[in-house]
């Protein structure tokens, strides 16, 4: 499903239908989901259509840059590190590419959206919320609905810390795709109530391709996004979860 297509594109999965039709000498991009239809005329007959997973913080409205995943609690022992897998909701970006130029023409998701508040009503942040089970092997997912997040939690403290929530900064996401969409992130526990999350720019499986980023990372004063760290000579933006890990 993800990847590069020509105008013979036709996808029909989980109630989502995407195709290109030709009528009256004109190519039309058509997307139908849950009774809603989007139709756009494509002026160029030679463009390619790219379907890539994008940062899942755009639909149904751009209310936040943050993705919050709640999962089955994991108790991290003192001085421990644990890797497990979570699912995250997928948003699909449909891009038109021609002569090296790429523009997004549609964003679609069939994952039911939900928002939440992380923190208190005065100074907290609105997040895109998702509930996932905790997996210790790569789970099976429906590629147009969910992706796989490999999360490594590091607890440098000398005490047990329970973790059942991770908040990730959407604009820093490094998405890859192959048979499904994936990303790799770390949660560094700072204290029993605070952690820092950041992404690694690596595919989860060999052969995965880097997805187009909708957003370039800028050093903007987003609540919690205050700093960056260097790992392997590469700068990684860090989001600080300051209102709890559960």
């Amino acid at each position, binding site marked *: 499903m993800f990847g590069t297509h020509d105008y013979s594109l036709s996808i029909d999965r989980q109630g989502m239908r995407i195709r290109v039709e030709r009528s009256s000498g004109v190519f039309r991009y058509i997307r139908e989901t849950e009774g809603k239809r989007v139709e756009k005329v494509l002026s160029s007959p030679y463009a390619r259509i790219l379907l890539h997973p994008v940062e899942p913080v755009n639909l149904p409205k751009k209310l936040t840059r943050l993705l919050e995943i709640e999962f089955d609690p994991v108790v991290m022992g003192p001085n421990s590190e644990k890797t497990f897998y979570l699912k995250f909701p997928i948003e699909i970006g449909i891009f038109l590419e021609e002569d090296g130029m790429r523009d997004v023409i549609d964003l679609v998701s069939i994952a039911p959206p939900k*928002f939440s*508040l992380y923190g208190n009503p005065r100074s907290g*942040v609105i997040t895109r919320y998702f509930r996932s089970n905790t997996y210790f092997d790569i789970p099976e997912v429906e590629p147009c609905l969910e992706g796989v997040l490999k999360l490594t939690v590091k607890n440098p403290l000398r005490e047990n810390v329970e973790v059942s929530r991770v908040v990730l900064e959407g604009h820093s996401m490094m998405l890859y795709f192959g048979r499904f969409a994936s990303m790799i992130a770390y949660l560094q526990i700072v204290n029993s109530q605070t952690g820092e999350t950041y992404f690694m720019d690596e595919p989860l499986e060999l052969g995965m391709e880097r997805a187009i980023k909708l957003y370039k990372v800028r050093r903007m004063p987003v609540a919690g996004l205050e700093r960056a760290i260097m790992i392997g000579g590469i700068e990684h933006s860090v989001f600080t979860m300051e209102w709890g890990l559960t």
Partner: protein
Amino acid sequence: MILDTILYNDVTLRDLLLVLVILLVFAFIAKVITLNLKKSLIDKMRKSELELLLKIVNYGILLLAVIVSFPMLSIDLSGLLVAGGFGALVIGFASQSVVTNLVSGLFLIIERPVKIGDQVNIGGVEGYVEDIRVLSTIMRGYDGVYVRVPNEKVFTSTILNYVADVARIFEYKIGIAYGSDAEKALNIVRGVIEAHPIALKYPAPVVFVDELGDSSVNIVARIWAPSIEWFSVRSELLLQIKQALDKGGIEIPFPQRVIWFGERETRNAPEG
């Protein structure tokens, strides 16, 4: 010494140089203050108003330098000061409300209880903040009417800012018929709220039977929503709840009274 050379009256070269130094120092202080003011207020004020304020501050400090240093040059400013004092008194009385609004505006710019675009209630005036100027705050009422509120009133009024916080709560009171299944109604309402994407997952909505009223069993639903979206959520959700309750066979009754008649004792009619 050359510095003791008298230029005129009792004014020496030293005095002249001292005056120049004082003027330079005050000019430097004025520059530093205006630069810092500009840096801190540049995104809080319109450019034209900021330029005006900076000029007032700059020339005010330079005027102070002149007042401090000119007596050293045997220039008697006392007459000017007396006249200026009278003038200031007259102008002060005439423009006290303008000055009050100006000062209030500056404090509002520093404190920022409201921002452009906020939905607010300022001393009973409800609407959206369109512009914040030095002398007044411009609002647009819900009916689209332009409202100019003097900053003195804004500063001294109780301000309700409906969007200052990230999230806010709103409440529905829903009355269902006594004959309807209350638990089913609660589950239906909870389901509708859960399905709405922007009704927040956390803090979790609260739905409960609040009162056994005269005409209905009253359910209360308290729901959190992002402050910038609360009105659209509040508008959409109630209709969805009504439709879901209708579909679930839950009656929302009109106000009603049930009247019971007691049995009458019958009496034998007198004969004749």
